[in-house]
């Protein structure tokens, strides 16, 4: 039994691909899923995996050679297998398009290989699609057993029960997955190829974000002395009251950001599918690092929370996210995101928008600076650096600066945070 590897279609417009590199030589054993070669189209490069385990029997093209989509590239089979016939079939396939199509369509093994080509339409029932969305399953990883190879409710339930790759992909996919995913100019199916599911999901989200927004980051350092004093005094009161609340700088910055966002709704908005929505309510995303990636759990209705509640909820969602207990609902719907690299000693950075949000606030680590006080005396102060990335399609630099101004006001005058 031999399997033919065909030139995959990477994206809707690809018509031919180029061999970039062979990872295996003829006669070498390969196992299923192992990369056999790397190919590239105009835009993308991808490893082509072995559809079955066996011996690489035929290489049908050399490096830099171009083949039409669907043309046979290689044959994998048993040692001493029907190399000649398959090779003949395969070599015919590269001659021209018509013959290539014939060769690909005719023998069953070729067709099987073709179904693994990425970017092919996935058939899924409305119910299964809805369930997959609810459970954040990656339908590309679920096998459809319904009529016409359709993914059905039954398949989704099985995927959930088995906790298979689809499910793993899920938890990560939400990392920055906005509630609405717009049609991306980048072909989602090809991004993150060769990565594990978590990385693949992150890759997709990052690429999507960069691909469909006009991101610009501005920076500003703000005097944090008052904030630190305020934090200390609040901590004492919390301890005295024996409240189980941890008042971190992130919590206070979050509160400040919520107040600033309520004044600047342009920054608390979604831009998706040609529609801009500014929100009254603030659902705050808190970027949270995991061992092998990151997720963004969401504190819903952050604008209605006091500092104490906010502190509690930020802690709750972060813990859940780290333990992998976050449900889909907890991981979607944010209107603005805060990401804090302060613990890593980073001063400034350029956060990537959590699309379709139009703003994300990066928080750096405190910086000691010498400054003159009112009396002209040199004094050591702590400053907190902010990096605000915004979508320049929606928000202009002046507006973004205005947002940072308002944020600074709350940081420098922290009693406003409890008003």
């Amino acid at each position, binding site marked *: 039994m031999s399997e033919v590897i065909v030139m995959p279609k990477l994206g809707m417009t690809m018509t031919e691909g180029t061999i970039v590199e062979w990872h295996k030589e003829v006669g070498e054993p390969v196992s299923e899923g192992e990369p056999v070669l790397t190919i590239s189209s105009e835009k993308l490069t991808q490893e082509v995996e072995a559809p079955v385990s066996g011996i690489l029997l035929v290489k049908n093209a050399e490096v830099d050679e171009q083949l039409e989509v669907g043309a046979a590239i290689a044959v994998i089979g048993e040692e001493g297998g029907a190399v000649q016939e398959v090779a003949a079939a395969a070599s015919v396939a590269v001659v021209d398009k018509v013959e290539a199509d014939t060769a690909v369509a005719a023998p069953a093994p070729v067709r099987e290989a073709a179904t693994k080509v990425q970017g092919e339409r996935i058939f899924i029932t409305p*119910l*299964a699609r809805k369930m997959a969305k609810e459970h954040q399953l990656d339908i590309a990883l679920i096998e459809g*057993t*319904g*009529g016409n190879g359709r993914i*059905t*409710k039954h*398949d989704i339930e099985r995927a959930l029960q088995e906790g298979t790759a689809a499910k793993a992909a899920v938890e990560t996919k939400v990392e920055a997955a906005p509630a609405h995913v717009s049609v991306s100019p980048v072909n989602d199916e090809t991004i993150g190829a060769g990565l594990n599911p978590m990385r693949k999901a992150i890759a997709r989200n990052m690429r999507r974000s960069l691909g469909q927004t006009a991101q610009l980051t501005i920076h500003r350092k703000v005097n944090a002395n008052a904030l630190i004093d305020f934090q200390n005094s609040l901590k004492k009161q919390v301890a005295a009251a024996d409240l189980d609340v941890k008042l971190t700088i992130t919590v206070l910055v979050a509160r400040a950001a919520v107040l600033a966002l309520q004044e600047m709704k342009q920054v608390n908005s979604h831009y998706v599918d040609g529609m801009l929505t500014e929100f009254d309510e603030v659902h705050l995303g808190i970027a949270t690092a995991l061992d092998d990636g990151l997720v963004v759990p969401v504190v819903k209705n952050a604008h209605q929370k006091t500092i104490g509640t906010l502190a509690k909820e930020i802690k709750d969602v972060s813990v859940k996210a780290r333990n992998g207990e976050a449900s889909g609902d907890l991981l979607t719907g944010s209107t603005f995101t805060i990401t804090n690299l302060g613990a890593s000693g980073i001063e400034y950075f350029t956060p990537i928008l959590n699309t379709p949000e139009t703003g994300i606030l990066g928080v750096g680590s405190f910086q000691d600076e010498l400054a003159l006080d009112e009396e002209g005396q040199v004094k050591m102060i702590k400053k907190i650096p902010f990096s605000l990335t915004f979508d320049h399609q929606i928000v202009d630099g002046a507006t973004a600066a205005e947002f940072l101004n308002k944020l600074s006001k709350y940081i420098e005058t922290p009693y406003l945070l409890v008003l």
Partner: protein
Amino acid sequence: MTKREVTFMTAITEAMAQAMRKDETVILIGTDVAGGAEVDHLVKDDGRYDDAFGGVFGLSKGLVTEFGRGRVIDTPIAEHGYFGAAVGAAATGLRPISELMFNDFIGFALDPILNQGAKMRYMFGGKAKIPLTVRTVHGAGAGAAAQHSQTLYGWFGSIPGVKVVVPSNPYDAKGLMLAAIEDDNLVVFSEDKMLYGMKGDVPEEYYTIEIGKANVVREGTDLTIVAIGKMVQVAQQTAETLQKDDISVEVIDLRTVAPWDQETVLNSVKKTGRLIVIDESNPHNNTATDIASVVADKAFDYLDGPIKTVCAPNTPVPFAHNLEQAYIPDVKKVLTVAEELIIDLQKKAVRV
């Protein structure tokens, strides 16, 4: 209630008789609903009448004897005329049952239904009511060929102002007939001629079945089959067959074709995620396609497969027995379309 077995025909005859006893404004009008008008030897010694036909299928046998020719009225073969008269009488105090011998003859009787009876109340601002029951006969299987075998209840059902009921068994036939006669609107009561001999439990008492309400005749969780009239049996047999493969089928007897019971059908589909509608009508613009359209719209996110309709082909009803049998939806056809829907649930192959 007393229980006894009677045929589908008898159930309808009994319903008409009980309605006529209960309400003297109920009349029966149509071609040969008695038969033998003005034939001397059909007048009995006591002055009452015997009938020659009692309807071409004998469904109104005996009614002229009990109620006289003043209330069981033979007409010339003039459907446009007597249907117009039935609508006129209904608008002015009578509660007629008007018989269209075969629904195929609707061409001759349509205007009084389509443009008069169905619209008067609306056009007159609610100041008229048309308590008219149109009894008619549909369905293939009797070898009656292209002009006597069609299934046209869906046509009537597409007219605003017309209700359409299609009973599937003797019990429903009686209850729905009495409900149709009681109804203050134009109700088409369409009987499948192949069901006339079907026997079932029918109480002797007067009872009605709510028009507009479907009947869940079998509960299930994997697949909903909505069926109309004779096709309910096909649905039941399909359910039995699939049960052997542990596929649990919910069977809904639609009972009322217009306005059909969206709530019951939608709730069932929301539970099972899969829908087959069996309707002996020709396949386009019929009740099945209407149900499919509404379900696709209102239960889209619950669908776990395409909505399937099993209908007659887009051909006239053929005469030859083998062609006619091939024309009528049957268990085999339903299983064939079911297979695509349940292939992911199957433990064993469907017996097609």
